[in-house]
């Protein structure tokens, strides 16, 4: 075909499959990001990561098959390994999953007083496996996170219903001050639904070399509006995050707001913008 040697054709097929996979994975990421703009930013971010990953897995298997290798054995090994891992790590995985979802959906935070089944206390730690309570008699109670997803959780902190917390994860390279500024500006439009004594706050929960985990906190006025406000907040945060991502993909330029100290036009190396 096209005068190419026959041995080239399978490799050409592999390249075509990889190319199509790249296009589909990119589209899947964008589509999921758009579809999930009302969801919690952390869930939307996870979907944007997992969707393309699945596409790539399928694409790579097809590419392997196109290269003339049998994928059946490979697929069986992967499936068996997966089943074994799930069986062996069922409990930890359940806790890990529960932790992930509890971060987003469970209405309690460190510092709140909660009751779960027969256990009551102040939440002092939420780790990957368990939520640790400090009971009134100074005992520590470690509740598996999976229990918190199965059992009713009573949060008895004063006005716990008012507090709306939204976890947000951004790349470590993000311009945090500007992102926060845009989120706060955008949420100002919702103030009629919020307790006006408390402007939204953004605190940094943790940082790694790759990402910054933030917690956005708002105080709502009416308990029944909690869900709808959360959806709207998610949408607005999503918009700010998209703008931030677009900025970081754009060619570099001076960041607005934080500027270099005023200098005459011939700027000196080293006199760059502050942190």
């Amino acid at each position, binding site marked *: 075909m096209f005068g190419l040697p026959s041995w080239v054709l399978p490799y050409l097929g592999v390249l075509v499959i990889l190319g199509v996979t790249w296009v589909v994975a990119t589209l899947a990421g964008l589509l999921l990001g758009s579809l999930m703009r009302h969801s919690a930013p952390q869930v939307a971010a996870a979907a944007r990561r997992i969707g393309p990953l699945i596409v790539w897995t399928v694409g790579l298997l097809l590419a392997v098959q196109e290269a003339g290798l049998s994928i059946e054995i490979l697929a069986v090994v992967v499936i068996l390994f997966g089943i074994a891992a799930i069986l062996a790590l069922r409990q930890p995985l359940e806790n890990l999953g529960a932790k992930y979802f509890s971060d987003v959906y469970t209405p309690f935070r460190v510092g709140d007083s909660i009751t779960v089944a027969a256990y009551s206390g102040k939440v002092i730690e939420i780790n990957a496996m368990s939520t640790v309570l400090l009971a009134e008699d100074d005992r520590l109670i470690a509740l598996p996170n999976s229990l918190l997803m199965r059992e009713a959780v009573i949060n008895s902190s004063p006005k716990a219903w008012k507090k709306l917390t939204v976890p947000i994860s951004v790349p470590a390279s993000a311009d*945090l*001050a*500007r992102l*926060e*500024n845009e989120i*706060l*500006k955008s949420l*100002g439009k919702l*103030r009629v639904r919020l307790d*006006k*004594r*408390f*402007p939204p*706050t*953004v*605190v*940094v*929960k943790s940082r790694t070399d790759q990402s910054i985990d933030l917690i956005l906190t708002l105080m709502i006025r009416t308990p029944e509006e909690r869900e709808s406000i959360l959806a709207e907040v998610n949408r607005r945060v999503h918009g700010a995050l998209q703008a931030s991502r677009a900025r970081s993909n754009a060619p570099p330029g001076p960041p*607005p*707001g*934080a*500027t*270099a*100290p*005023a*200098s*005459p036009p*011939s*700027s*000196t*190396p*080293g*006199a*760059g*913008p*502050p*942190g």
Partner: protein
Amino acid sequence: MEPLTICVNSQTPLLQFLPPPEDTPGAAWPGSARLDEFDEGVEYRFSPGGVTRMVYPLLRRLLANGVLAGASWVALNSVGPRQVRADGLTLENVALDPLRMGGYAKTKEAIWSTVHGLEPPPAVDDLFWSEEFTEYAFYNRVTAERIRKLDADLDFDAFYIHDFQQMPVGQMLGSLKPKIFRWHIPFEAERIPESWRELFVSYLAEYDVVVVSTERYRAALTTLGYEGKSLRMYPYVDPREYRRPTKKVVEATCARWGVRPDDLVILVVARMDPTKAHDRAIQAVAKLVPAYPTVRLVLVGNGSFSAASGGLGLSKAARWRAHLEAMAHRLGVGERVIFTGHVGQEALDCFYERAQFTVLPSVNEGFGLVVVESWLHRRPALVTERAGIAELIQDGENGILFDPDDIGSLAQKMRELLDDDGTVSARLAQNALVTSKLCTLARAARGEAELLAMAIEA
């Protein structure tokens, strides 16, 4: 305790760099520089007020006596090098573009005016939910991020954050290291609107210790609902900075500003700002002039960092001075009131020496260190009862207190001192000199060292 490395943060920078003329060829601020590379008065000047009088000498003292091994000082400064090294300190300048600066300045002025009782508080809609408030948050976030990056390199032992402008920094830093917050302006519970209190307390709760200037302010913290650790520390000056010039130098210096040898000088040393209530002093002096035609009211001081062109660029100092000048002329005492603007330490010493007594007329004053300066010059002080330092004054013993809204009473108290044969003034000055020992740098340095130790060892 091992010598510590700390990070200090204040809005007002220690140094205000003066923009070079626009046509200076090839002029540019270096990214990092030593202070001795610049000329004082030509390329920079020290900011007037507490940062130069208190924070800078304190840090130098703590560095000299080995409490500190190093200190970085992060402040808002849009003009000048990004980093300046001076006397073992590293000054880190945070710059904001003018648009964001405007929003930040508007928010902090609204808080400042309310806390000082100058204006009714804005509605929460107009404050916490305004675009300007997001710029206030922006500035604090930029500052917190700068501090965090410095901490990553220098591994500070503690953070020392100064004044209400920087209140959110503690929350934004998110560091587990000790954080101290010093509140400098008045802290009266009744002046902080109900709708602001929980937010303020939530900011303050992020610090390990909150330091205020008087016992009254400390009690107000509790009234507001703050449950953390608090401490009262009187502001301070270094008495060695205050010299008594010779009579000849005093007369020559004062003559340059039009003070005549037979003038009875009443001195007000205060920033040109409505809260300093120079107008009360002018009105009281107007009542005295018929009986004391040689009385002269000397007003020393100009705008703060907020009013400086290299600072926040607010024009309230110029507006206030114009208002005062017009008032003095309207009252027929335009000739009797002298506006000196900013003067150097030597000239200031001369004015203190030349004065019969000093007046602090503020309608609200966080503390009132100029009163201590007056005491160090052995000059009695008439002090508004709304100043923090009023807590240290026993009326008629080491100073004279007055209600700044009662001009007649202020004029009467001035009259009594002008009529004094020297006996009352000498007793007041002697007792006040003893009181001034509570407000010295040496005492503060010991207190601050203990504070740092307490915060770190908790």
